[in-house]
């Protein structure tokens, strides 16, 4: 950025460290055993534990989704009661939002990748990192207690006064969400500090991978918005247990106030879910097109712009709620403004492909799927931001389709891109490419078959959260249900080949994609301390036009007996030290 002032330039002795293809010790081979894992402060192990938990919750949430879709095969009762259906959609929504998407990319993949992309040994506060994981587990236990005990039937939105009067276990779940929030806040704080303090020599703000920018923007939202959710659920709990009237009109409260509080968190929360996905897309699209990212600053800063404007649009969930007319107008206007930075990103990614060297491996297939599906999600979001259209579409299946295109077609597909991209680094094993492509195809077909018909029936008037529906909507619901089975098969296939790859004895190369990213300049899987030297960075993470050797540099002094592997050519580089 600014000119290098003389005092800010230091001369570093660096040499090349070529990662070994056959590492003797990795973070798997050290600190083995259940107890070592449970008490580990290693960000990679914690990341994998998060990944495992997120996968379990996704399995549960997914199974519930298939049960819901099966019930909707016929207009009246198919096989479960209305109350059961209501509990299932509530749990499905709550699990997918709070236990899958919010922690998925930051806490699972981010934990693994963030310190490595910064060339650090770990996050800034490793113990706090472990604490966040256990807080997440405790939050989950509270939710399971609710499951076993009356369930929850309020929808994941907990709207009052319904949730004040409901006989289901509202308090347990709200406490679960409250606890979970701390996990999110701590992870966010940890990441912000790590990005500021632990960047390897040479990584200036302008050389941060876009994945880091995205996680950084996400962390800011997590730290600022989550406390509001905590207060909201706490107030709800107080109202239910102590009878203090805040939201319930019968006690002198205001039910619309709850909606304001709730969406003040939950709209930014949708950016907590999607922005990390943007980060992955930038990493994968450059690696598989061997191209410098187009519009680095446009992409980096638009994440921050989205993070900030995202705080000012919560009222677009309440256009029909009876909020004031002025508020409604302003919220609609601001909503459109968030659309712009999002659109800019999409176009920059497409432009990145221009004159690239494109290889359609599984992660790249998911990037293409993301660009297509997320665009649909974005366009339909513009539709919902438009006032008169939203009056007609609010709380119909159009909205259900819209948020599945954004959250599943966006975040989850980006997560799959990242999972396949980093899988060889995380596990040291390669999955079966053909099966990967078949699964991607099944997911693409299944997804569109499930959710495209929902746009049509929603627009024709099919309300959401409906156990029964009128006959006219039957064909749409049935297509959607069959699509969801195809989708389910796709996910099972992924689970199958990923699981199998872990137990195969074929080793993945240290950098199968020839990526320039710093995290790839380590062994697969990495050493317990990520690198056996202090990495030094002189190029940007997307400088695909420069030779690989220049990306494998480390402080010459930190050479620690890696013997013959390092090609020990000493170079003198001057680098700009970062300004904090």
């Amino acid at each position, binding site marked *: 950025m600014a000119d290098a002032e003389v005092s800010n330039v230091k001369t570093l002795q660096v040499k090349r460290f070529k990662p070994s293809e056959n590492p003797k010790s990795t973070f798997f081979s050290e600190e083995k055993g259940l107890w070592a894992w449970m008490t580990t402060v290693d960000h990679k192990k914690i990341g994998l534990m998060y990944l495992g938990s997120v996968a379990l919750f996704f399995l549960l949430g997914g199974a519930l989704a298939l049960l819901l879709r099966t019930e909707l095969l016929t207009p009246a009762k198919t096989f479960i009661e209305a109350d059961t259906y209501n509990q299932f959609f509530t749990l499905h929504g709550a699990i997918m939002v709070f236990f899958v998407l919010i922690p998925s990319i930051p806490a699972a993949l981010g934990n693994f990748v963030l310190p490595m992309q910064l060339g650090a040994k770990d996050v800034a506060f490793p113990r706090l990192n472990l604490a966040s994981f256990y807080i997440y587990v405790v939050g989950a236990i509270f939710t399971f207690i609710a499951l076993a005990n009356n369930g929850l039937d309020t929808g994941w939105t907990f*709207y009052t006064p319904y949730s004040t009067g409901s006989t289901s276990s509202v308090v347990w779940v709200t406490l679960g969400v409250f606890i979970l929030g701390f996990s999110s806040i701590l992870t966010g704080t940890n990441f912000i500090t790590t990005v500021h303090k632990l960047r390897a020599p040479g990584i200036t703000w302008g050389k941060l991978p876009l994945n880091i920018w995205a996680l950084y923007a996400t962390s800011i939202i997590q730290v600022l918005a989550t406390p509001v959710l905590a207060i909201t659920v706490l107030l709800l709990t107080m109202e239910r247990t102590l009878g203090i009237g805040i939201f319930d009109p019968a006690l002198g409260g205001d039910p619309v106030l709850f909606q304001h509080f709730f969406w003040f968190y939950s709209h930014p929360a949708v950016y907590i879910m999607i922005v990390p996905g943007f980060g992955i897309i930038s990493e994968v699209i450059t690696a598989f097109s061997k*191209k410098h990212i187009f519009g680095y600053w446009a992409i980096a800063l638009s994440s921050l712009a989205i993070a900030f404007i995202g705080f000012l649009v919560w009222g677009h969930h309440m256009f029909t709620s*009876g909020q004031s*007319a002025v508020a409604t107008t302003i919220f609609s206007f601001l909503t459109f403004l968030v659309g712009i930075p999002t659109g800019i990103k999409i176009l920059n990614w497409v*432009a990145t492909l221009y004159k690239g*060297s494109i290889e359609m491996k599984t992660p790249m297939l998911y990037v293409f799927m993301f660009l297509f599906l997320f665009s649909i999600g974005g366009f339909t979001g513009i539709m919902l931001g438009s006032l008169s259209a939203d009056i007609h579409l609010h709380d*119909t299946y159009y909205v259900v389709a819209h948020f599945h295109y954004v959250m599943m077609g966006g975040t989850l597909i980006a997560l799959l891109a990242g999972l396949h991209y980093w899988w060889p680094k995380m596990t040291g094993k390669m999955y079966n490419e053909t099966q990967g492509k078949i699964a991607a195809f099944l997911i693409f077909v299944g997804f569109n078959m499930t959710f495209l018909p929902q746009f049509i029936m929603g627009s024709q008037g099919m309300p959401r959260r409906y156990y029964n529906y009128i006959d006219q909507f039957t064909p749409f619901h049935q297509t959607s249900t069959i699509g969801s089975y195809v989708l389910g098969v796709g996910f099972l296939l992924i689970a199958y080949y990923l699981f199998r790859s872990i137990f195969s004895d074929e080793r993945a190369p240290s950098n199968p994609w020839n990526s320039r990213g710093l995290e790839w300049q380590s062994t697969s899987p990495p050493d317990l301390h990520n690198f056996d030297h202090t990495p030094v960075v002189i190029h940007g993470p997307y400088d695909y036009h420069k030779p690989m050797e220049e990306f494998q540099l480390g402080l010459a002094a930190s050479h620690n007996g890696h013997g013959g592997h390092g090609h020990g050519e000493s170079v003198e580089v001057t680098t700009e030290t970062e300004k904090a």
Partner: protein
Amino acid sequence: MGGLFDFMLPELESPMTGASTDAVMGFIHLVSFILLIGITIALIYFAIKYKRKSEDDETPLITHNNTLEITWSVIPLILVFIVFGWGYKGWLTLQSPPDDAYEIHVSAFKWGWTFGYDTGAQVSNEVHVPAGRPVKLVMQSEDVIHSFYVPDYRIKQDVLPSRYTSVWFQAEEPGESQVFCTEYCGTSHSDMLAKVIVHEPEDFKIWLAKQGSGGGTPIERGENLVGIHGCTSCHSIDGSDKIGPTLKGLFGKEEQLADGATITVDENYIRESILEPKAKIVAGFENQVMTSFEGRVSDEEISDIIEYIKTLE
């Protein structure tokens, strides 16, 4: 515009409220569709044209292009301003019922709708209106939040327990349109349906006159009240249990309570069950709630309901 996407919408029955909505939806769908096709073609074209030929492929360094960046920020910005203004205009119409609108009171409850006319007539789950005249609904909820939605008119408005909200429309032709509740409200949310029945103005007058003002014998009034207050969405009159126990054969019966006691059902017990449902809970229904009707039914009305329940043997 956007005729391509007309198939997505139901037939418009209230052009005064819905025409602008349909137009803006058609416009957004069309523009989005064109842009989406553009993006998709670019993706496929690049994937084929720049397919990797060898691991040593070299790619040019293209970092950014300010002209492009500004173009694709400004054009979408203009488009969204159009869409904002258009949506806003349509919405203003929805917010401003004409002064001569015919007013009907709506009461929403778990799980049904009652429509009250200025003659005193009350009907449940059917709202009869005259064609060609603006109708304004003034709505209030008896319990949780509901939402009044008529897809054919493109109108929707939440119905709140704490204050009045309103919505208006003008159906041009006689016919029927579906009403849905679109704010989740519990077990039978998806059965909380109603119909708008549009009559020629003359027929509407005749229909309204026939409704009287809620007169009749106490038993007839009681039967009507049980429908209007939604008792029948929780209590059957045919002997089967729904959310609550059946009302059939209730009067004079020995009722088993949740705390183990038994009680003979008489007038006072029914009265208490309506005003203070939590005072004595029927065994087997501990996990269900009946909301209190305190302040919503008058003493005379309770007497009428009791007379009606007595006839259900």
